[in-house]
């Protein structure tokens, strides 16, 4: 399958996409791979900024009294900035921005995305929002929580709410641009023979993600604009004193922000759907089910926002309907988990680093999903609403799910992106540390929440201390697990490219070209003659022999 790639090297290897190293060539690039790298650098930066804040919070929560931060307000700003940075500047753009940008065109046999310049623009827009976010952090922060609930955010908060709203508004446009680009690319740029059902599931998931981005993000944009209007010009939109409706904000906010959870986790599914078959050496089980489950999640995801508002004075009937719909959205997610599990069954499993991350993802996402069902039940939600139970639940989805998948994806495609292999030993160690550290950090929080410890307080009752100390200890292990890859991945760059086109023996068009790929991705027009995940050996031999037919 890689024979053609080797053959071309003899008549002079074309420059790979990394060979031009000038700053201008990076800042003005329209190459989807380079934009992916730009995103990788920036999301990594934001991830560590958000992570440091999380570390400070865990430090504060080691003891029942407030002693690390000077005031409760400082703590409020910390958790707000942690949420804003992690969600808007890391989780939402991480996988689509980095892996999606890099891989989507390669996977469908295209030269680039449909709108390369818009792709670069999306990074700049994202960076403008991000720099504003950091500016706010340095100059005092925001204390509304990442949810910006009114009327606190519009009437009472004395912090940089409008600046934060503008930052989020701007970053939202980056999401919309990426989403539009992906949709149009998948529709118009697929190589001949790349039918919908020959698309890798990575592409299906990103397509579904893009739909949510384009439909959902404008709602977020308009919500923060309305906050700005009310705060600056006293328009009565959310404040009852001016004739507004505070619940309206919650509706608008969650109408975006619940689908945003799927913006964050669907790309995680995308990565896992690629890793699992490769390291099980089996075709993925239930391809079409997984593909349509992504689309189903994108649709159902828009119908469940009210489950965030069970105790916000929403009508009981609305609550019941939202509860039922939230149960329904678990079905497509469960379909995916079951299909991945079925793919593992009787596979020739190889526990390389990406696979360890993927296995971690499956376990942690399942726990996150099941506790999500508990929260979707009206009666339980009333008990645990706004407690650490909720905090633990969404960290299982977002860290245990998305971040694990992102790291798994980075480890899986690192040889493709950089042409280098990394130390497997350190890789496995990091995956293990992340898994153990994560569970130690967040499982105690389920217990804390169930026992009634409210979220967003910087002091707590002494009887909660043991579990909080466990959580902080876990956070330190987790931090080591997150920092490790930074070192060994960067160290791998000192080597000469040694990965070869296809170190994992994976299927998929991206593995048919050199590592790192050349600027133009493919040297000749691609003709696709078979579906993805041809991991049964005989079939792979037969089908992939004819994949790279030169038809020009």
């Amino acid at each position: 399958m890689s024979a053609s790639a080797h053959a071309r090297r003899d008549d002079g290897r074309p420059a790979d996409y990394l060979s031009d190293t000038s700053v201008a060539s990076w800042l003005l690039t329209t190459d989807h791979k380079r934009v992916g790298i730009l995103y990788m650098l920036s999301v990594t930066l934001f991830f560590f900024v958000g992570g440091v804040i999380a570390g400070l919070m865990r430090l504060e929560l080691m003891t029942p009294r407030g002693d690390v931060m000077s005031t409760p307000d400082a703590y409020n700003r910390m958790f707000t900035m942690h949420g804003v940075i992690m969600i808007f500047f890391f989780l939402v753009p991480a996988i689509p921005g980095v892996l999606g940008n890099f891989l989507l065109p390669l996977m469908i046999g295209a030269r680039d995305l449909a709108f390369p310049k818009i792709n670069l623009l999306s990074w700049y827009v994202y960076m403008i929002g991000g720099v504003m976010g950091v500016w706010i952090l340095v100059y005092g922060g925001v204390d509304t929580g990442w949810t910006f609930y009114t009327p606190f955010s519009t009437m009472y908060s004395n912090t940089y709410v409008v600046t934060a709203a503008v930052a989020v508004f701007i970053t939202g446009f980056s999401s919309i641009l990426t989403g539009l680009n992906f949709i149009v690319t998948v529709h118009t740029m697929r190589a001949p023979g790349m039918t919908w059902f020959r698309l890798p599931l990575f592409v299906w998931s990103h397509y579904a993600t893009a739909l949510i981005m384009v439909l959902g993000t404008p709602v977020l944009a308009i919500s923060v604009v309305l906050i700005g209007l009310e705060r600056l010009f006293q328009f009565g939109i959310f404040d009852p004193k001016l004739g507004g409706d505070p619940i309206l904000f919650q509706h608008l906010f969650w109408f975006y922000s619940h689908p945003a959870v799927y913006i964050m986790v669907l790309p995680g599914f995308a990565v896992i759907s690629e890793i699992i078959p490769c390291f099980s050496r089996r075709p993925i089980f239930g391809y079409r089910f997984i593909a349509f489950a992504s689309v189903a999640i994108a649709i159902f995801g828009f119908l469940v926002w009210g489950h965030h508002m069970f105790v916000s004075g929403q009508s009981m009937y609305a609550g019941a309907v939202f509860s039922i719909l939230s149960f329904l959205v678990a079905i497509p997610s469960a379909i995916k988990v079951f299909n991945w599990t079925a793919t593992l069954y009787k596979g020739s499993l190889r526990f390389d680093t990406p696979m360890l991350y993927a296995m971690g993802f499956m376990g942690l996402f399942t726990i996150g999903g099941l506790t999500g069902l508990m929260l979707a039940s009206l009666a339980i939600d009333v008990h645990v609403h706004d407690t650490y139970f909720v905090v633990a639940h969404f960290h299982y989805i977002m860290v245990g799910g998305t971040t694990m998948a992102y790291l798994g994806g980075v480890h899986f495609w690192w040889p493709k992106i950089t042409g280098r292999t990394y130390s497997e030993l350190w890789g496995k160690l990091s995956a293990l540390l992340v898994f153990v550290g994560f569970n130690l950090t967040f499982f105690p929080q389920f217990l804390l929440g169930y026992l009634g410890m409210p979220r967003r307080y910087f002091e707590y009752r002494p009887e909660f201390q043991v579990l909080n100390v466990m959580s902080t200890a876990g956070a330190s292990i987790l931090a080591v697990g997150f920092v490790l890859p930074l070192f060994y991945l960067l160290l791998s760059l000192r080597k000469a490219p040694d990965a070869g086109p296809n170190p994992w023996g994976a299927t998929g068009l991206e593995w048919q070209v050199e590592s790192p790929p050349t600027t133009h991705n493919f040297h000749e027009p691609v003709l696709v003659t078979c579906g993805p995940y041809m991991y049964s050996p005989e079939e792979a031999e037969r089908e992939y022999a004819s994949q790279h037919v030169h038809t020009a």
Partner: protein
Amino acid sequence: MSRPSPRIRSALALAAAFLALTTSPASGDEPVPLGTPPATVSDTSFNGTASRVRFEQKLGSQAPLAATFVDEQGSENPLAACFGRRPVVLALVFHRCPLLCNQVLAGLTRSLKPLPLQAGVDFDVVAVSIDPEDTPDSAAKKKAGYLERYDRPGSEAGWKFLTGKKEAIDALCESVGFQYVQNPATKQYAHAAGIVVLTPGGQAAQYFFGIDYPPKEVDAAIRRAAEGRTGSKIAAMLLLCYDYDSATGQYTLSIVRLLRVFGTLTALSLGLYLFLMFRREHRGRVGDAAAAADAPGA
């Protein structure tokens, strides 16, 4: 902020004030719509009654010209006698009304007074009683009072205070979208406040709600009605963007409705794009059927 019905309900706050003065909380068995905030007993009765009191804009709707009414001098004429030559400013009131109707008529007089247009020359004012028990005598007294306020000699013929039978009243109210409720205990009426400008042909041309009618707008409405124009469709569309806000007593931009419209437009445009793309692909594939028919590798 938002109201579930797209119709404009006018001056309900005033109607509420009126009810509080004139009704006892007797009709507490009215069904309360879902989602209504917890209410006290008097709130409940208000909600029940208020839900039936409304002033719905029926632009272009034809007034029943054949219905007969009695004018303040006691002579019985079809409604057509008031129409045909000039536009008509119609106020629906009842003469025993202790508060709101007087406010409506006073407000009307106040806005007509500074106008260059003259009642009886450029338009007519017709105040119809919704109470079948009102008599030409009481109507004449009312007329005298408001003529004095209007204070323009020679405009007597331009003001008509009509009374009539229930059928005629109902036909007229129905045609202009005026719904009221009578409290059986006090015999008082709960109703909305507002006036309607009609064309000389008897078609509703423009509505003004509340008790303050901006003179300039009334002037413009009368001139437009004189030309037989029944409101503008654009204005009617524009009204869809506004809701009555009972907290401030004003019409305000309906954020929720605007959001719905733009949200729907976004979804539709994305849907349209996807539809077009899938259709294009489907057509493109017709020549490539063999490749397309292959099942996926899974």
